[in-house]
């Protein structure tokens, strides 16, 4: 109880600073939620479940961007835009044409994988062959993000889009309400992530990808078709972003302008975890998801991300390579 009083005092001070205008209602809600947090486990379960569900899908996104980074040494600035494309493909196939959800997901995966393949083949490969400077490829990556953003705006319009429930109903467990569609997304995400990790770990193409990630030249010298697998890896990473988009459109909505902010989310995940490291991607994804779930529960509007981004900067001051990343320089 002593802790709670200190916390309440602290929140009073910050609230005074930030929500001068709408102080009364905001504060009341905040107070109530804080009391709930301290005196009952009830809401906390819900918040933690939300974080877990969200984290599973974020994991796909983080794995995708970290794969592309590991193989190409390219930070895929268009990752969030690819996510948006995946979301819209599922919106059209499942929401508008009423085909099964599985078909919609496959379509999302395929479309975004093709985008990734084309990017690697016709944009990144020629530019990287000409110059090895990090700047050039990064600027190109930013350019592709701009391109996809504007294509999305032209193709999909400005409206926020959602789809009808894939499965109706809510599962009530341990004081938390979990809609079945969220549970489905959670299950599929985990299955996809496990499948992806198994693929990379145990198959021949997966081994080729790991070899390229470790050392491009040596892999080439040992007969790995680097050009082929670079394109394949880029497409695979993009596909994971597309799948995440297709999955999350069934629980959240998607709009054509969400790409940039989603990219920032993806960056945040791998900056927390460390770029190019699989375990780091998973850790980062779940940490961001939990921070988001807790933040959105206790704080209004856009405050959670402000705190997350400021926290990220402070964190990186102490550990610039992320949790699992290798120290450089």
């Amino acid at each position: 109880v002593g802790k709670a009083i200190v916390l309440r005092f602290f929140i009073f001070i910050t609230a005074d600073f930030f929500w001068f205008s709408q102080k009364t209602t905001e504060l009341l809600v905040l107070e109530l939620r804080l009391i709930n947090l301290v005196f009952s486990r009830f809401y906390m379960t819900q918040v933690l479940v939300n974080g877990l569900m969200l984290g599973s899908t974020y994991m796909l996104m983080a794995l995708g961007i970290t794969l592309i980074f590991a193989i190409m040494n390219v930070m895929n600035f268009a990752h969030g835009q690819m996510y948006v494309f995946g979301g819209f493909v599922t919106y059209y196939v499942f929401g508008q044409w009423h085909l099964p959800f599985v078909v919609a997901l496959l379509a999302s995966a395929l479309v975004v994988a093709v985008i990734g393949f084309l990017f690697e083949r016709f944009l990144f490969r020629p530019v990287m062959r000409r110059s090895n400077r990090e700047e050039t490829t990064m600027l190109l990556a930013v350019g592709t993000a701009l391109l996809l953003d504007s294509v999305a705006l032209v193709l999909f319009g400005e409206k926020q889009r959602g789809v009808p429930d894939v499965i109706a109903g809510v599962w009530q467990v341990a004081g938390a309400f979990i809609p079945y569609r969220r549970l489905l997304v959670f299950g599929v995400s985990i299955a996809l992530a496990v499948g992806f990790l198994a693929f990379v770990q145990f198959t021949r193409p997966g081994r080729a990808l790991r070899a390229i990630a470790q050392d491009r030249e040596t892999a080439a010298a040992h007969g790995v078709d680097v050009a082929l697998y670079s394109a394949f890896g880029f497409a695979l990473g993009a596909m994971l972003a597309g799948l995440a988009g297709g999955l999350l459109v069934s629980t959240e909505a998607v709009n054509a302008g969400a790409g940039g902010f989603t990219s920032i989310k993806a960056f945040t995940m791998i900056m927390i975890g460390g770029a190019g490291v699989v375990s780091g991607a998973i850790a980062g994804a779940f940490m961001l998801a939990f921070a988001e779930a807790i933040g959105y529960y206790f704080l209004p509007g856009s405050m959670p991300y402000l705190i997350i981004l400021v926290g990220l900067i402070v964190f990186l001051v102490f550990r610039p390579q992320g949790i699992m990343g290798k120290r450089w320089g």
Partner: protein
Amino acid sequence: MKTFPWLLILALVLVFLLVPLVFASSSYAMTVLINAAILGLMSLGVWLTFSIGRINISQGAFGLIGGYITAILATRFGLPLWICLLASAVGSALIGAVVGLPILRLRGVYFSMLTLSLTEAARLVALNATAITGGASGILNIPTLFTGDNAYLELYFFVLLLLVLGIAAVWRINNTRLGKIFRALQQDENLASSFGVDIAAYRVLAFSLCCGFGGLGGALLTIFVQSIYPTSFTVSDSTNFMLNCFLGGLGSVFGPALGALVLFLGFQLLSPFGAYQSLIYASLMILAMLILPNGLLSLRLPKRRASQGVP
């Protein structure tokens, strides 16, 4: 030390002086020119961080900071705009130094990603710190520098003067010992450190100068449109500053201003295409990256520049 390229400067000044005389009657054309000049000034700062080998996508954040400093000082405290402008530049530079000290320890894409997040963080601060910034409704009715019949023309010349001074300052920095140190940081920070260069201090200096330009530009733009919102500078603005430098050419001090002019003008010229405007713009930009990897300024004397490389 290279001699100052007087001829080029003279030609540029002539063009910049003659252009408004032709378009002075069209307030739209003047608006575009003023915007391009301000964006050029802000891009100039980003060019400085390019010269220490960092890709900085946070200039939008410092544009916001500078804009809000001017807006608050002018509307709440009624200070003269000249002082506001100065305060914006100095304030942004100081904040840049404080923020830069820790984040400049990051390298490569990590630095770029974090600066990108910084832009978003600045927008969120502006949105949430309602007591100071007015939140989503922004700050309106900011006084303007020039009033009267030729207000646009006067503002244009004022901004142009600042741009020329800025270019001259960066040119001077680039061609003295400081510029050499910056380029040494770009080549290899550890090596530079082993030669006794205080790398932390110099990279903070470069970043802080960049933020100063950003703050000044943001303040100018705020005065020009007489309002500021959390969305006045967004992530896409931050990336545009960087693309201006790149398209103009990283090899020359004139690159950022040229890039800003070409890109901003290009975007405006594409406006008849309506919904396809930004699509065509983005495609052209990617095309430019593919065929002009060293920027527009590399068009002349391509052989010499190719052997010399970027900065």
